[in-house]
């Protein structure tokens, strides 16, 4: 749609814009927003209410999007780095998320499945979950970096075993946390009407942005992704950098898992974060990042994650069953990917060039 609208305005500005990476998620966002505006403007209504604990909360579809899109955005941050450095994707994030959530609940609940009070401070549980998650990230990373196994296949191992390990950690029981303070992280902090996950996502984004801005990590990741051999000749250690990106993704998984278990105060091993790996990969693709590695744009991926949540929420609003959701998502994804494919773009721009001289000729006559 956007590409077809191009010849109407000044061409050099627009073609520059079209080539910019952010155009895909932004265009998708605008299309979705426009669609919702036409179909039902009340989609954008936000109301201030009070939840059962008496705290002010904002509610409405836009709030749902920034709330539930946050885990996805956090995962997309890590996934972008992994994609850029290793030219492959980690398909085990959902399973790893189950593991880190399971570890956290195990520590918070101790041996009791539903203790009246927390057995350990939340921060301790979180830190241990982070460490465990990073160890699993390092496992994936070392398979990819040192054994040179394709990322998708290497992470298939954890994908197969992850949920089983998660169930095993808690002996297949479902621990329940009864402490109210634990629900703050996946819900609302008292007195703040905006959902906490959104703030956590923003913090994660800023920290990563700073990391990329003030260290050479971003540059190194890109150079390893573009050409591993040249990077090595330039004195980089590609294995170490790949490993590092997987460990960072592990950290992102732990944070996302923290939000997920905090939302429910419990865990369901086979359902928690189901198919989230696919959404995370789609977020990266939607952000216009090459899935074969190399250059990346973190903000585009994060925006892509929220666009996917936007789409999900829109579909839910139109009473699409949660199981049927994926069919519509697939159609949208295929459309976006086809439009952004280099071959299609080349053909379209060739078509535009053909059209333009014809127009100019008409004007001169």
């Amino acid at each position, binding site marked *: 749609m956007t590409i077809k609208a191009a010849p109407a305005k000044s061409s050099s500005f627009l073609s520059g814009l079209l080539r910019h990476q952010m155009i895909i998620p932004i265009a998708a966002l605008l299309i979705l927003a426009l669609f919702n505006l036409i179909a039902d403007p009340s989609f954008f209504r936000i109301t201030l209410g009070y939840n059962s604990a008496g705290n002010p909360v904002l509610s409405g579809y836009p709030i749902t999007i920034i709330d539930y899109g946050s885990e996805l955005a956090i995962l997309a941050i890590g996934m972008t780095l992994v994609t850029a450095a290793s030219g492959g994707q980690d398909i085990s994030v959902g399973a790893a998320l189950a593991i880190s959530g399971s570890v956290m609940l195990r520590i918070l609940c101790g041996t009791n499945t539903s203790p009246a009070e927390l057995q350990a401070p939340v921060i301790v549980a979180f830190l241990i979950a982070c460490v465990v998650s990073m160890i699993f990230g390092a496992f994936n990373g070392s398979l990819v970096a040192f054994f040179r196994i394709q990322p998708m296949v290497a992470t*298939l191992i954890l994908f197969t075993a992850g949920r089983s390990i998660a169930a095993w950690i808690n002996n297949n029981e479902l621990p329940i946390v009864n402490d109210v303070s634990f629900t703050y992280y996946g819900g609302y902090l008292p007195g703040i009407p905006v959902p906490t996950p959104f703030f956590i996502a923003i913090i994660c984004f800023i920290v990563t942005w700073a990391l990329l801005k003030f260290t050479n990590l971003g540059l190194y990741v890109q150079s390893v992704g573009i050409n591993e051999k040249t990077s090595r000749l330039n004195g980089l250690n590609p294995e170490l950098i790949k490993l590092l990106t997987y460990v960072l993704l592990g950290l992102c998984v732990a944070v996302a898992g923290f939000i997920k278990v905090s939302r429910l105060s419990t865990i369901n091993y086979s359902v928690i974060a189901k198919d989230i790996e696919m959404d995370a*990969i*789609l977020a990266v693709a939607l952000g216009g990042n090459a899935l074969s590695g190399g250059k990346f744009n973190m903000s585009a991926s994060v925006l892509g994650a929220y666009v996917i949540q936007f789409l999900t929420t829109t579909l839910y609003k139109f009473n699409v069953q949660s*199981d049927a959701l994926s*069919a*519509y998502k697939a*159609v949208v*994804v295929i459309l976006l*990917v086809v439009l952004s494919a280099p071959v299609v773009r080349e053909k379209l721009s060739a078509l535009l060039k053909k059209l333009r001289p014809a127009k100019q000729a008409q004007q001169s006559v």
Partner: protein
Amino acid sequence: MGNHAMQSRTKPHGRLRNLSDTNLLTSITVIVFIVMYLFAMIVLQKGFLKPQTLFNILNANAALIILSCGMSLVMITGGIDISVGGVTALVSMSCAVLLDYHGGSVPGAMLLAICIGLAFGLVQGYLIAYLEIQPFIVTLAGMFFARGMTTIVNTAPFNVQHEGFVRLKDARIIVPFLGSYNKRGDYIDAYVEIGVVVALLIVALLFFVLKWTKTGRNFYAVGGNRQSALMLGINVKRTVFLSHLICGILAGIGGFVYFMHVGSGSASHASGAEMNAIASSIIGGTMLTGGVGNIIGTLFGVMSLALIQNIVSSIGLDQAWWTGITIAAMLCLFLVIQSIIIARRKKANLSAAADSKG
């Protein structure tokens, strides 16, 4: 493979090196399978001494064998197809609905199954080969679409009552001389289902095509090195397209075989089948980098995966998580072996090249 002749010329010593990558990886799998089965027969005894146990493994995994064959073909060509599980679910649900709600016939259902597979193969193949979109993303969307469509076709899972189909489902092919005696001393015939015959036929056909036809060799050439395949005058795009097309059709056939085995339609059917198919192909010696693979290996890959599940559950570790963990451990082991072999080979090739120059 082409490598075979070259390697045996440059390095006359070392018997292992006379095997090509494909054959080496495949023989490891076959040996592992036989060792595991012998272990089960000697240590566990119980059912493993009866041939029917082996046939039961085949019966339960006929569909997976067909799906894995398609997967191997795509992987040999250097791509991947993760939509096969979704297509299987869609096929089983559509056929179930056709048979029970719309008065369809069994041949009609078969035709529908193949058409669904063909449609997925055509669209995915076109997008991947001619629009040059990454196979992972295209087939990921394919999987999403198939799973979603399954729920749209029909939400609730149900068993098919159609008479002709039930007769087909319960059809047994008796294997002579391999039956066993039960406790009362009655002879019980050993049997396989129709799906097993279909699966083995497809394995044989694909093995033949990959080994001895020009099209088959093209798959290896394109997977091994796209650039040189292009220079050799191979139509790379068409080959890639063809591999996805065949994989799609096989997914349709596999879906019907799966449907014949379970006899019901459900959106949760064959969940994770794509991952099992990939795992089987890898264990069977197919490499995701492309250019290396063997259909016989894939067959043994499926069988090894199924066997290890059987062994684990008969040892008494029947909690659900042990299956997942053992499969993952096995996959991990095979991947590490693969990567070590490839790394050593590369080194050996380099030093051989240096020797011949010096």
